[in-house]
């Protein structure tokens, strides 16, 4: 569905995105595009949505270059960052226009407008002018315009900005249901928690470079330089005695009723731990990975490349 082959983007002398290569497969699912401000997230999204052509390399969406390509644009929806909407218009009429610009007409258009408004919970407020809408309402309308033509690929740039907690939860639920319905969703954010709630499949960008791609666990496993921290709960003395014999152990800390291990090469360590526990060799009651989460991965990767 999405294929980038050494695609890069320059703004004059400034490199917005270094040559980047990755692919996302067909079918539904949510991929998080993660990185701090200025990492190149918006640059990447602009390439994918066909707003900007790549300065180098190649971008393929549904097998074709997306820039000003109606065949691609008819199949994707974009919710850019911010809550900007045209001044002086009302949601219903504007959505109708956006539907017509997507090739809808007649009953299909009316149905699409009604459905998209219902999906975002704005049916009874479509008559309001944009200027009288709250930020959350405007964000919902922007989402509605991206959904109304039934896109196979939905791209959202920082969609949670300015939303209250309730609206965030609503949006998360909506995106999940769309993904389950077969829509491939790409969501950018600089806030880890937002992405973590949506998906564990991420693209990690930093200073215009794609640092990592995959699930949090997959990426974490690439970081052998940074040991994984695990808390083993059980008889701490016995667990510690077993742990010090393992070649992957980097550090050990005793706690009451548990032991915290820093372990290199978790892919080799985990099977051995599981086997020992299963055979009754160690009195293990619980295993908690302490830094096998998005926050830790993000910190490690960005620190390495800073």
């Amino acid at each position: 569905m999405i294929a980038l082959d050494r695609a890069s983007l320059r703004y004059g002398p400034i490199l917005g995105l270094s040559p980047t290569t990755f692919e996302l497969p067909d079918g539904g699912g949510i991929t998080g595009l993660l990185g701090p401000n200025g990492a190149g997230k918006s640059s990447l999204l602009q390439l994918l949505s066909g707003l900007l052509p790549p300065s180098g390399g190649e971008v393929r969406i549904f097998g074709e270059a997306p820039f000003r390509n109606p065949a691609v644009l008819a199949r994707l929806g974009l919710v850019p960052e911010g809550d900007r909407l045209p001044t002086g218009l009302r949601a219903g009429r504007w959505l109708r226009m956006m539907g017509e610009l997507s090739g809808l007409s007649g009953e299909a258009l009316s149905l699409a407008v009604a459905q998209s408004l219902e999906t975002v919970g704005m049916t009874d407020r479509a008559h309001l002018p944009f200027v009288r809408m709250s930020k959350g309402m405007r964000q919902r309308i922007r989402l509605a315009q991206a959904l109304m033509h039934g896109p196979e690929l939905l791209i959202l740039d920082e969609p949670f900005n300015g939303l209250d907690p309730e609206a965030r939860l609503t949006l998360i639920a909506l995106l999940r249901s769309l993904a389950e319905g077969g829509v491939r969703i790409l969501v950018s954010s600089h806030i880890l928690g937002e992405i973590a709630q949506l998906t564990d499949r991420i693209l990690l960008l930093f200073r215009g470079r794609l640092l990592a791609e995959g699930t949090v666990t997959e990426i974490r496993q690439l970081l052998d330089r940074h040991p994984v921290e695990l808390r083993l709960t059980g008889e701490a003395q016995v667990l510690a005695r077993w742990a010090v014999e393992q070649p992957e152990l980097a550090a050990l800390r005793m706690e009451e009723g548990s032991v915290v291990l820093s372990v290199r090469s978790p892919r080799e360590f985990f099977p051995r731990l599981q086997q020992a526990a299963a055979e009754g060799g160690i009195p293990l009651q619980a295993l908690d990975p302490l830094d096998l989460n998005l926050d830790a991965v993000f910190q490690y990767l960005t620190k390495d490349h800073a």
Partner: protein
Amino acid sequence: MTTTAPSPLATIRAMALGYAPRIFQGRGWVLAASAIGPVVLVLGGHLIARLQGAESSAGEALQIFHEMIRMMLPIMALVAAPAGIREDLEQRTLPLLLVRPAPAWALPLGKGLPWFLWGALWLVVGTLGLQLLGGDPSLLLGRLGAQVGAWWGELALMTLVGLLFKRGTLWGALYFFIWEPLVRIFPPFLQRLTFTHYIESLAGSRSTSVQTSQLLAQEQVTTHPLLAFLILVAFGALCWAFAGWKLQRTPVGLAGSEAEG
């Protein structure tokens, strides 16, 4: 759901209908006032003069109107063009339009069309209202053609300039208020590079009212009224096409600035 790209005509229609409510808001009424203002002033002045017993001929009043409308048409273009596709560029809502499968080149004309029609409506109303003065009916068609044709061309030019330059309004104002008056002191053929020439060729004021002493250093150049009208229409169409081509070819990102300069 499978959708296909809309045709250029469907795109223009969708944009025109979608943005039509904008003309009934503040800027739209300023535009209407700009078009109708000269008529109201001329009619009011004529009426007051007649009531006070002073002599005021219809010919003089029409001459004043010609001078005023020549100034007001550029002002109308300067008012309306920033509400065209330039507005979406500045408000950063253009990406929402550009990620649609509709042809991008049709967007400037689609958004400008309601403004053209609204302005043209008031120009026609004003010109017809002027007939209350008893102006020569044989010149009516020329007056209408001059104003609507020039309005079409000037709005298109301002839309194009607004896409080409960040300070498009400034460049447009310089053209209308510096170049157009200034060209009268340059060689006569340069008159053909002004809207004024075609307005005067169509409206008839040039040949009937302008004295040689009013011209500084040039001969009078004339263009057949029908040809003058066609040139205004063609120039406008060319500007809309160029604006569309510019938008179609130029990458416009989320920051909205890539299309400029």
